[in-house]
């Protein structure tokens, strides 16, 4: 099998699964129980936070363990909106956010909030001038993703962070689900108040994730209950999940550190070779994240290519997995103002640190064959 759909999800590292199993078996006590066994569990939870905090260079109590990206984004956006609505009811986000951000914003619109959806240029980037211009007196939140899941474009988070810093009335949330483990993102002193991360995109487990919540930031909780996790997320802590998340984060950070640009080289190779295939157009801009390449084969239905490759157990995707069931057109590519022929024929290849040159070569050969065959049929 050649798995090149790592932006949809990744294969869990065996070490992560092992930790999950060990904690489930040996530390199943409730961290809130006052007996010694509960104490052990609480200590382990604390250790998971400490390790996570150390890698992310933040404080342990700024780490909230969640069930993943969708929960993180919803908790952050609705949490800020509901907690701080007396300050203002305006939110800024972009047109190319993940559905868990956009739909949360739509939901808030039905509750009387106003949302500005910033446009992006052809490279899938919001402009700093637009961000500045969109800020109003009643703006309470800017929510912008770090790396786009379909295109791999990298937003100017640092600059938006300094804008947020100069506007102390508003909060800044970053969806870093696709950037985590691939591109560095500074959280401390960066103007970022909230940051969403997901476990299963970094070879962790489904149902695990982290929301970074700056110590000074107050959120209206989505779940009320036993006051766990700074009262931001009540419910008995998923201790095995938290430990598995901490472990996955450590492993991916090590890989990131030791990769020495190998992933970028592989991506560049993929890009150059794709460009050579007749009929292929690259959609991903230059200077994008090192693991995503989006391209179109205008005139060919992407699903057909997916299935042809799938027959040889080569897995890539159309658009993002979360949107692929809706319509034919890629919302994100459409936002970049690309032609309809391109937006309806887009394919995405996403690498992991374990992807090899052999795998990429095999994929390229299979793709070329598939495209040639289909073109013959069509003509």
């Amino acid at each position: 099998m050649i798995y090149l759909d790592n932006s949809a999800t990744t294969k869990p590292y065996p070490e992560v699964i092992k930790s999950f199993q060990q904690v489930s078996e040996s530390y199943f006590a409730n961290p809130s129980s006052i007996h010694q066994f509960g104490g052990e569990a609480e200590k382990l939870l604390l250790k998971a936070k400490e390790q996570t905090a150390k890698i992310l260079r933040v404080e342990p109590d700024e780490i909230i363990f969640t069930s993943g990206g969708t929960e993180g984004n919803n908790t952050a956006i609705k949490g800020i909106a509901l907690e701080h609505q007396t300050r203002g009811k305006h939110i800024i986000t972009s047109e190319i956010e993940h559905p868990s951000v956009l739909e949360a914003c739509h939901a808030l619109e039905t509750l009387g909030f106003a949302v500005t959806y910033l446009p992006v240029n052809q490279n899938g980037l919001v402009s700093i001038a637009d961000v500045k211009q969109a800020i109003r007196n009643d703006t309470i939140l800017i929510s912008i993703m770090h790396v786009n899941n379909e295109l791999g474009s990298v937003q100017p988070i640092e600059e938006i962070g300094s804008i947020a810093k100069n506007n102390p009335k508003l909060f800044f949330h970053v969806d870093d689900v696709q950037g985590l483990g691939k591109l560095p993102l500074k959280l401390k002193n960066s103007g970022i108040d909230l940051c969403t991360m997901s476990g299963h995109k970094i070879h962790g487990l489904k149902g695990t994730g982290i929301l970074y919540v700056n110590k000074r930031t107050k959120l209206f909780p989505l779940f009320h209950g036993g006051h766990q996790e700074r009262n931001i997320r009540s419910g008995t802590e998923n201790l095995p999940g938290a430990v598995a998340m901490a472990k996955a984060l450590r492993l991916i950070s090590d890989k990131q550190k030791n990769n020495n640009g190998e992933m970028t080289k592989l991506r560049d190779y993929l890009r150059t070779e794709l460009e050579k295939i007749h009929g292929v157009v690259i959609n991903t801009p230059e200077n994008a994240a090192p693991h995503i390449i989006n391209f179109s084969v205008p005139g060919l239905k992407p699903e057909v290519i997916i299935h042809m490759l799938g027959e040889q157990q080569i897995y890539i995707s159309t658009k993002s997995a979360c949107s692929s069931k809706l319509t034919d057109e890629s919302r994100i590519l459409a936002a970049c103002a690309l032609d309809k022929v391109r937006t309806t024929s887009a394919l995405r290849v996403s690498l992991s640190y374990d992807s090899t040159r052999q795998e990429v070569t095999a994929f390229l050969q299979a793709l070329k064959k598939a495209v040639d065959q289909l073109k013959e049929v069509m003509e």
Partner: protein
Amino acid sequence: MEFDHILIRYGEMALKGKNRKKFIVKLQENIQRKLADFPDVKVTRTQGRMFVLLNGEDPVPIVAKCKEVFGIHSLSLAIKVENDETKIKDAALYALTTSENVKTFKVSVKRIDKNFPIHSQEMNQVIGTHLLVNTTRYKVDVHNPDLEVKVEIRTEATYITASIIPGLGGLPVGTSGKTLLMLSGGIDSPVAGFLAMKRGVEIEAIHFHSPPFTSERAKQKVLDLARKLTEYGNTVKVHIVPFTKVQQSIFREMPDGYAMTIMRRMMFRISEILCEKEHILSITTGESLGQVASQTMESMNAINEVTTMPILRPLIAMDKNDIIKVSRTIHTYDISIRPYEDCCTIFVPKSPKTRPGREKVNYFEGQMNITEMLEEAVRGIETVKVTNKSDTVGEFDDLF
């Protein structure tokens, strides 16, 4: 362009005469230990100045760490460039624009290398002009600027520094001997330890543990507090005294109103014995005058009678709110408020004497076999070395 080193200033230490060298070496050691997680970062001393060389590391977390080292009066991010006019101008511009909350500035040039062609007065103007031409939001104010851009032209290179970031002050930990901190698990005692450390003192801690009335988690709480204190110094040894028997005997045999006073006296007696064993010259407590029954003038008089050790009470004149403020800044507050019973909250007499007399206390104590109780408690002391690495190192390692 980026900041490549941090200039460390140590104010008070300059006064310490012959010991000065010792203080500075200690400070350098302490900073090095604090930055051990950053192997590329180096701490150096030249010509009476201390520098942290960043070697490409992000300065923000390193500044945060340095702000937790006693003995640093203030620090500044700095850039080292060649003695070249254009490079100096660019570096000054970078220093200005990366500083926060600045509306007005001034430039101060010191030309130590007299071979540099432009005199310092003229250089002030050259740089000032460059800064004004290339920005829009700053004004010059030579009397009371928000930021002084300092440029030092030395023979080997030019150093440009911007904002002055205040440090913790105090003296380097390890230059003023050692004290035994009575660490209960409450809000006050860690703050007392922190303030003692501020004056250069190393600490060991003593904790009175009364299982099964107090739980493992109460003990863990104290170890976690001690670990927070290691952030400001070195390893902290925590001596855990088995205290159940002593407490039970006191509360069974002594009159209710005096039980608390006598319990505190036993604690001081045990602490004193431990100090002698460990060659520690003083005891530190979190007492604040009048805060609770044991901290009235009369109580302190009656309790203090049992020891001739100097007792340091850094919080004696502080209000509770101010103590809480400090405990929040040193991150001990959230640990201190964990709701576990400790030995002081378990056996609470209904109405403790707020004005116990020494004579009465001595009379009652005469009916107990104090020596035997002390010996047994001291024999049972368990000592835990708390380092600023996670206290769970080893235990869960295979899981992470």
